[in-house]
């Protein structure tokens, strides 16, 4: 029941987004010296949230459905095109990745803080404080 509350869903989606982005940043950093590797990224959470309803692709909303996306949140990584690549074709810049990592960490902390404080509100409404 509680996962249907909008603020919880939003905080959860934000944390999941931060986790996915963290995974990509780690991947970029690990491949910072791999020849021919192109840096990947996903859209910021705000863009996904605002444009989230624009996708008209079929969706699988029940376990019995054959086609379409399932309910799990997925992010498709995009290749960053406006970065300059090294002579060996690698386009990872450690500085940019570091900034992204800080961004991700802050977003994750923010999402968890929102979740926690809403949980506090819920708990005090239940009178178990």
């Amino acid at each position, binding site marked *: 029941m509680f996962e249907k509350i909008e603020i919880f869903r939003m905080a959860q989606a934000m*944390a*999941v987004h*931060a*986790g*996915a982005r*963290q*995974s990509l*940043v*780690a*991947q970029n*950093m*690990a*491949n*910072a*010296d*791999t*020849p021919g*590797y192109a840096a990947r990224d996903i859209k910021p959470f705000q863009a996904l949230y605002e444009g989230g309803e624009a996708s008209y692709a079929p969706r699988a909303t029940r376990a019995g459905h054959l086609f379409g996306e399932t309910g799990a949140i997925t992010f498709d990584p995009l290749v960053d095109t406006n970065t300059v690549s090294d002579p060996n074709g690698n386009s990872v810049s*450690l500085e940019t*990745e*570091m900034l992204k*990592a800080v961004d*991700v*960490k802050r977003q*994750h*902390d923010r999402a*968890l803080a929102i*979740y*926690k404080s809403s*949980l506090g509100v819920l708990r005090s409404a239940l009178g178990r404080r």
Partner: protein
Amino acid sequence: MSDFSNSLSVSASGLKAQAQRLRHVSENIANADTPGYRRKTVSFETEFGGPDASGRVETGRVNLDRRELEQVYDPSHPLADETGHYQGSNVDLMIEIADAREAQRSYEANLKMFDQARQMSASLMDLLRR
């Protein structure tokens, strides 16, 4: 949760690859004066196409630098030929130091990512506490 464990394992693979590279750099530097020694290099490859396309990095096979060996003039050297030259190594210390510095920088970045993923999952677990 699998995002974090994936992130941790990718960072760990990066750490391992950079450490491997540093190992070969130190081997090159140690053998900078060995006659006939060829500089060793490792290449990095992305591990793709697995079941989950994890994007881990791994080191490829070790290659020897094909550059010509340095000719050192020293007639008293046991390996010297009739002209008084012998073949040294083709290690350039400047390149090795720069390589080592780059490896260190990438290693630190990976370590930072590892630590961050750990912190993030720890703060997620903290939600369970009251």
